[in-house]
């Protein structure tokens, strides 16, 4: 999963973490069957530029049949500081 962060400010920033929260795809295909790793590190982004990181998305081997073709909503939050 490629996450692209846009820095819309006029100063450079460094992103230090991005956390992905997974929502239920359906009542029969819960969020617990889908995992996304957390990014931690140092991602420098100049002003008005974008940068990307890759995180790993994995579906559980115990995912039920109802998860075929399911779409999991993903919610991202990130933290960082001025460069």
């Amino acid at each position: 999963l490629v996450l692209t962060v846009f820095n819309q400010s006029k100063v450079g920033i460094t992103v230090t973490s991005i956390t992905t929260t997974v929502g239920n795809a359906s009542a029969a295909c819960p969020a617990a069957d889908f995992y996304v790793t957390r990014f931690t590190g140092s991602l420098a982004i100049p002003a008005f530029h974008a940068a990307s990181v890759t995180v790993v998305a994995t579906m559980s081997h115990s995912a039920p049949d109802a998860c075929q073709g399911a779409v999991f909503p993903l919610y991202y939050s990130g933290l960082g500081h001025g460069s």
Partner: protein
Amino acid sequence: VRKLTGVISVLVVCVLVAGSTSPATAAWSISGLGSAGAGADAMPAGLAPTASTAGSTVTVGWPAATFADGTAVAGYVVNRYNASTGASATVGGSCGGVITNTSCSEAVAPGSWIYTDTPVQLNWTGTASPLSNTITIPLT
């Protein structure tokens, strides 16, 4: 899982930190939010099998079913039906249970029969294949 791209936009918050004995310095903390979705693959349908006979032994073979990215499914379940009534029969030999090959054989009672193969992967089950050709095992 299909590859998707998520997007996060950030806002910058400026915080002035004033020391009592040193000049004021500036630090920025940032936070951002975004959302996207990730779609799971779906099981492929089985592909039509071909059945052939040698005495009372039936050999069934079928093309491998693959996911959208070309990965082969883990296994198949083979079913046999009475060609006249459509009633399901219990398969045996190497056709019983979950099969990791794309062919199997079993000894079959006299009658006319048709087969299907259904892809399976862990807890997931695909759609059964179209029916095979009809094979007939004569009374001896």
